[in-house]
């Protein structure tokens, strides 16, 4: 075995540029695979963490009529929960309203949230630090798109539970920075007690955020969505993205493997006398097949070493500095959580998995043309007559 590796190494180094071209393209593929997967894993982890932190908590108990994708359900999708059942739950009530900054009219969702809640990172403590009549916290996307800043007073118009119009000024007391656009754009967060008073819907909620101690039991009229269920859609989108980007690196891998395959076919043809000599010296045909297969798979090992040498500083740089996303992606509601900087996550599993993929596939494509050696007549081979 050791001999096989030594021979293979010598042959590869001896082949010069041809070897380095094969190793180069395979190393490039190796880096691209790890980079893409690390990038998607990083996005996935960040998006999940941020979504839980800002939007989902430990799950949501939703009113049975509430559909987050259908704003028309908001009018009637709210109700009360017996206080015993609302333990470890924080209520959120959603109502539609119109905001009038500088004479423009913007449709917004006003979301009432408990000022003492700990389940989400929305800075509700800001409600306690102000004496504003209706304090509101908004996200930085909402603030930017409507030129709002802390201290601004804006007129808000809404309807109470009977549909009667009411209007009053709200004061922006805090602007938060979150990667989750679905709790930011077109939304204002106000104390739920105030919203109950404004809409005459005392004690009502559209949904509840569960904390880590919440144990769900069936409640009629309400539907519980666990954290995992809520994250499912996000995971599916990222998996789909991962599948579509795999086409790119599979294509690259295909080109690299084709080059190895081609090199193997050529070397078996050109090294007939060498093959004949090995057999004449007492090696079995399969030992020669193994020798050529090892030689082919050596490309992948060399590519892996080269890939790690070149890739490591690149991976380290991006993992610590992140990859900046364009503003239009992060500032608009793309329907999925995307951070302003995505920090790729290069796990040990990803490295080993990619290494295995490259080595195994390179070994297979090296073995396929080498099988021909098993059928070679050593005399013909020595004479160089194998076609």
């Amino acid at each position: 075995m050791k001999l096989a590796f030594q021979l293979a190494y010598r042959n590869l180094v001896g082949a010069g540029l041809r070897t380095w071209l094969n190793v180069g393209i395979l190393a490039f593929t190796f880096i691209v695979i790890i980079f893409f997967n690390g990038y998607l894993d990083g996005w996935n982890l960040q998006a999940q963490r941020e979504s839980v932190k800002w939007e989902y908590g430990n799950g949501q108990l939703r009113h049975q009529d509430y559909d987050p994708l259908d704003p028309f359900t908001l009018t009637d999708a709210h109700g009360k929960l017996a206080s015993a059942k609302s333990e470890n739950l924080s209520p959120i009530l959603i109502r539609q309203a119109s905001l009038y900054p500088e004479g423009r009219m913007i449709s917004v969702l006003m979301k009432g949230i408990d000022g003492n809640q700990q389940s989400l990172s929305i800075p509700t403590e800001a409600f306690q630090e102000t004496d504003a009549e209706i304090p509101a916290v908004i996200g930085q996307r909402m603030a930017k798109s409507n030129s709002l800043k802390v201290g601004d007073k804006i007129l808000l118009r809404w309807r109470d539970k009977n549909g009667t119009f009411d209007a009053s000024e709200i004061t922006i007391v805090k602007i938060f920075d979150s990667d989750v656009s679905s709790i930011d754009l077109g939304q204002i967060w106000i104390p739920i007690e105030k919203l109950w008073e404004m809409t005459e819907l005392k004690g009502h909620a559209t949904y509840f955020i569960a904390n880590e101690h919440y144990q769900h039991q069936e409640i009629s009229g309400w539907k519980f969505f666990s954290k995992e269920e809520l994250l499912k859609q996000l995971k599916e989108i990222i998996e789909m993205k991962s599948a579509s980007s795999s086409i790119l690196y599979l294509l690259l891998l295909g080109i690299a493997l084709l080059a190895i395959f081609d090199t193997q076919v050529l070397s078996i043809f050109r090294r007939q006398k060498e093959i004949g000599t090995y057999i004449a010296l007492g090696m079995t045909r399969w030992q020669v097949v193994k020798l050529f297969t090892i030689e082919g798979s050596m490309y992948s090992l060399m590519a892996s070493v080269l890939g790690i040498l070149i890739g490591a500083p690149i991976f380290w740089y991006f993992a610590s500095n992140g990859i900046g996303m364009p503003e239009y992606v992060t500032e608009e509601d793309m329907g999925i959580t995307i951070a302003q900087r995505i920090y790729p996550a290069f796990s040990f599993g990803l490295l080993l998995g990619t290494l295995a993929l490259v080595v195994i596939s390179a070994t297979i494509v090296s073995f396929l043309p080498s099988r021909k050696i098993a059928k070679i007549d050593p005399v013909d081979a020595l004479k160089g007559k194998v076609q």
Partner: protein
Amino acid sequence: MRSYTIIIFGLLLFASFNLMGQSEFTAEEILQKVDENMSSNSTITESKMVIHGRRNTREVVSKGYAEGNEKAFTEYLAPEREKGTKMLKLEDKLWIYNPSTDRTIQLSGHMLRQSVMGSDLSYEDLMEDRELTDIYNAKIIGEETIDNRKCWLLELNATVDDASYQKRKTWIDQERFVPLKEELYAKSGQLLKQITLKNVEKVDGRWYPKNVNYKDVLKEGEGTDFIVLDIQFNPEIPDYIFNKASLKR
């Protein structure tokens, strides 16, 4: 001395009653007279809606048929983009037919609160079919002059829970029994909408304002003008007009 005081006090009381503009009508009677003047069993109206936007002004011409307060049918005639769009209101239901998609949709819930063709009017504003006297308690709170016309100023306070506006103020022309101005207020007392009625003309023996401006006062801009080009009171309207089938006709 004591008798003088009583006489002076009596005169002041008499004068103050006169100054308060006590008319021969009560607020309810005024509203009733306005209703008699403004409403009829049926109408056919050709009108133009001028929507003043932030950057441009759009004009939408339509022809509307109405019977009582519960049946209304409107067909948009211009501009080209809106031409053929039809709306049918039967009691509390509203359907809209869009010729480009050849589809009829029924508006409900929050869709009714959307603006009609980008104007300051919502579908719900068009849907309101209750008499003012059914929803509001009216009282005369003063007299004012608008465009050289003496007006009663009436304050209307909602007597039902589900009125869109808790309070209204309306200025009624004392001679012609036509409102010349109206203000709609939120529960907090914030003024929300202002309606100005102008160009009052005599049509079929009744006074009718042919130019109405609706203005969302919270929004910048000049609001939306609703100009009546032609109106017929109490015409015969065939039943098939107020039928869903007429939307696609």
